């Protein structure tokens, strides 16, 4: 993603520009974390038969595709054989009318979720409100047998009783800090008001 595009995305919800202060993980760390999480997912679900991955827009989508590729690699499946969906939770958020909320990207769930194991994939788990919204959205698409949550970074400060099943890294943060996850690594930084 070009820098300008990333800045626009980072700045839109917060009204400022993300400035990185320290680098927590690099691209290889991400790959290793994804590999471990993939093994954990397979261990928990005794294989990948009933899995459907749903990447949360926008940060979780790339990770969901990377996670699917890793799972296919481990299980020696054909490429792109695992179903990967995308979900934008904007219309399910609980802060509509409190701050500007607008759907950013497409929701694409062309599969029947009934009695499947849905793994929600997101980049950062913070207050848990996005995941709450995602759970509501998923249930509108069907009745999965189980919903699990995989996140690259769990940064704490939960406001709802939600916990991740698979975590890339537990990262203690301050509330005002921001965590930026890309396939090239994880940065901890702050929002600079423009």
């Amino acid at each position: 993603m070009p820098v300008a595009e990333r800045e626009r995305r980072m700045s839109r919800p917060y009204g400022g520009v993300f400035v990185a202060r320290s680098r927590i993980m690099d691209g290889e760390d991400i790959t290793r974390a994804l590999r471990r999480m993939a093994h954990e997912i397979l261990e928990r679900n005794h294989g990948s038969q009933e899995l459907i991955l749903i990447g949360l827009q926008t940060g979780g989508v790339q990770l969901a595709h990377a996670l699917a590729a890793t799972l296919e690699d481990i299980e020696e499946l054909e490429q792109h054989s695992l179903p990967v969906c995308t979900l934008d939770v904007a219309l399910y958020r609980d802060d509509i009318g409190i701050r500007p909320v607008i759907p950013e990207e497409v929701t694409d769930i062309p599969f029947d979720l009934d009695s499947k194991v849905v793994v929600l994939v997101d980049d950062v788990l913070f207050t848990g409100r996005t995941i709450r919204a995602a759970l509501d959205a998923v249930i509108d698409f069907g009745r999965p047998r189980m919903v699990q949550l995989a996140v690259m970074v769990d940064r704490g400060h939960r406001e709802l009783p939600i916990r991740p099943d698979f975590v890339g890294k537990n990262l203690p943060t301050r509330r005002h800090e921001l965590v930026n996850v890309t396939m090239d690594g994880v940065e901890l930084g702050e929002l600079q008001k423009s």
Partner: protein
Amino acid sequence: MNSFNAQEARDADRSQRAHLLSIADLDREQIEELLRVTDTFVEVGRRPIPKVPALRGRTVVMLFFEDSTRTRLSFETAAKRLSADTMSFSVSSSSLNKGESVRDTIETIEAMGIDAVVVRHKSSGVPAQIARWTSASVINAGDGWHQHPTQALLDAYTARSHLGSLEGRRIALVGDIKHSRVARSNIEIFTALGAQVTLVAPRTLLPASTSAWPVQVSQDLDAVLPTVDVCYLLRMQQERMTEALVPTLREYTATYGLTSARADQMAEGAIIMHPGPMNRGVEIASEVADRPSAVITEQVANGVAVRSAVLFTLLGAGRLQGSSAAAATNSSNELSIQTDSVLAEELAHAEEAS
């Protein structure tokens, strides 16, 4: 962030509510964003449960001073897909029959606690006037000959879904331009998105002057048709015609109607649009209306998604403000110039008729 007060934020949101009164109030970026959000609602419409909880607890009032079936039903469906509550109001069953003024009606409805009003009125400028009287978001669902912005948005969306970008595309608007709010809104949106608009109509069905509009004018449908990507037909509005503007409808059909022979002259991939309700056999031949290149039912389907996008963008995202909202408050004592000119024409028309 802990001291963040949700109630205060909601009140602040309420005090600077945005409106959608005219396409002219939107810049290209805002139009593009509305069309992008429309994509989201087209997807919602395809879901097993085509409903999202985004506007739970919000109330949308349909205030229709003029008859409408499709626009009102479309707005109601759009609001319900967002889980908003809807109230409907039509003149025949209201106190307006007992002599209540529009302003009193608005204030009464507002006292019940509403978030958005969808207004249709036979006079230009009424939605803009209502926007000054109420703190709810006002959506213009058609005012006189002036504007019908959600129709323009759904037309732009439909055209784009068939043609890709509208940049450099050629669009013909055919028929009764003079009495058409759809034409005025569509000229603005198609031009804003980079298309070239040609008006095709007898001089009697054109407004007094089109020199201020960024359009070409032609009286020769047969010459224009092969060059366009979209042939947009307007309804012959017989209820608005108090004088004989065309000799007979048959003569109109012979010169400006989209007959089968004319439709065959259109370029490959070109589409036929109509805002409905159609007069089959007048502006469009019945057989042409049922061709695959006629996307008229698609326009209706997209109408629900576009109106959901408008409602959500106004009430959920609080967007579009600073444009139309400012336009409504800044010109607090005068209608915008554009409304003025349409209104003047309407008034002259009414005087002539009486």
